[in-house]
């Protein structure tokens, strides 16, 4: 008799949720229900979803069913646990009533109130949804398959497109809102920067019309002052000192693989006499890739022509001198650079 009622209830759940309901067991009922927030079926407005597992025991409905979140999209842990506790609470409230449909409806209700993307945009690192942004809110896009959301989508589509166009060397800043690019973007597929899942043109259909309207977003709104403060902070100063100290120590034990010093023989430089024999140590050393611009090179001075500096960086002569046993060094005479 009780079993019959429960079976009728399972039928009702199936009738309400159709394909979104998977019945694993009819009695005691064990269901997976795909829950979406109410967005009038506009899927581009849907940022979260969940599959709810409801498993009742033979004592149901006297004992509430076990509820868990089987999987979810777009929900951070906090909202996941809020959703779960909310439904469990409802289950206790309705204890000894048939509650399956009511629980699902509660879940839909709660999801509708949580239907917003969470956290920061993984590309520009600004919060995706700012509480007090008002009308100033930046548009963002949602990838339809994985629910990952981004600001800055136009830059990014552009770079995806360029990537597929066999990496043309052009910069990203060029030709925003150009219609041919737009068409190319429409046809192409790409990968989500977060989960690398392939997405297709239809995934981004819903934002393509925004592209023209907000073409210049987020290009170069730089604020440097806060940065200067950061760099001058006490903790930064002490960090830099620590860094220098360790470097000096490692340099003394010849632990650093350093760029060639751009040594040029200048009038007035001499080799100290006290060293007995110039040890020839033709140690082959791993050289590091010097594609990185050497911004902080303490030895580069302004009184040398820059061309010779560059040339001396490239040469491989005098290699032995930079090896582990650094025994001698050119020394500048005090007044060598005076004129």
């Amino acid at each position, binding site marked *: 008799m009780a079993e019959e009622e429960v079976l009728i209830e399972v039928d009702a759940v199936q009738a309400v949720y159709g394909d979104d309901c998977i019945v694993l067991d009819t009695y005691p009922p064990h269901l997976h229900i795909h829950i979406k927030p109410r967005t009038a079926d506009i899927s581009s407005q849907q940022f979260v979803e969940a599959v709810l597992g409801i498993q009742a025991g033979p004592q149901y409905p006297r004992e509430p069913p076990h509820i868990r979140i089987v999987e979810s999209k777009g929900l951070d842990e906090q909202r996941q646990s809020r959703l779960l506790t909310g439904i469990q609470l409802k289950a206790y409230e309705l204890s000894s009533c048939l509650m399956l449909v009511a629980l699902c409806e509660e879940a839909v209700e709660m999801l509708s109130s949580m239907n917003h993307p969470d956290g920061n945009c*993984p*590309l*520009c*690192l*600004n919060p995706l949804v700012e509480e007090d942004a008002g009308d100033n809110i930046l548009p963002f896009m949602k990838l339809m398959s994985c629910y990952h959301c981004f600001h800055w989508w136009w*830059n*990014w589509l552009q*770079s995806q497109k360029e990537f597929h166009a066999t990496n043309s060397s052009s*910069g*990203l800043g060029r030709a925003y809102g150009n219609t041919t690019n737009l068409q190319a973007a429409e046809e192409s597929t790409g*990968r989500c*920067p*977060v989960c*690398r899942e392939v997405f297709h043109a239809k995934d981004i259909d819903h934002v393509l019309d925004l592209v023209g309207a907000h073409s210049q977003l*987020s290009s*170069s*709104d*730089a*604020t*440097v002052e*806060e*940065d200067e403060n*950061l*760099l001058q*902070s006490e*903790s*930064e100063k002490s*960090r*830099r000192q620590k*860094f220098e100290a*360790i*470097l000096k*120590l*490692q340099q003394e*034990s*010849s*632990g*650093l693989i350093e760029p060639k010093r751009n040594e040029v023989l200048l009038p007035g430089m001499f080799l100290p006499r006290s060293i007995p024999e110039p040890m020839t140590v033709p140690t082959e050393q*791993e050289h*590091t*890739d010097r*594609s*990185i*611009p050497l*911004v*902080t090179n303490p030895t580069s001075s302004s009184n040398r022509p820059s061309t010779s500096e560059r040339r001396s960086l490239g040469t491989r002569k005098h290699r032995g001198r930079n090896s582990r046993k650094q025994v001698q060094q050119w020394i500048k005479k005090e007044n060598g650079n005076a004129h």
Partner: protein
Amino acid sequence: MANSNLPRRIIKETQRLLSEPAPGISASPSEENMRYFNVMILGPTQSPYEGGVFKLELFLPEEYPMAAPKLGRICLDILKDKWSPALQIRTVLLSIQALLSAPNPDDPLSENIAKHWKTNEAEAVETAKEWTLLYASGA
């Protein structure tokens, strides 16, 4: 000057790197060029590089974050074809730290050392420990 047009994203990353540094990793921008970072990675515990301090130079190219940071010759897929703009300086440095814990002799910088590592790992690890102590010690 290179600092005058720094994208907000780089500023945000820098702030977070400085205020919440990842354990064993320190990255601080150069005063002259905020796209240039002095990086120190501590050798991971339980690895042959434990006790060592490893210096790196990291440079953010103009296209960053659409292009990967430049880091010299480190064989890591995310620095090449697997780069994604959702990765950050922090994630790159964490990957390098992880590489110290689990070196990949199939994609080496030095063929000789890779061969040594593959034929006699115990001995290669000993050498790595010795050299770490000798050349990379931070104290």
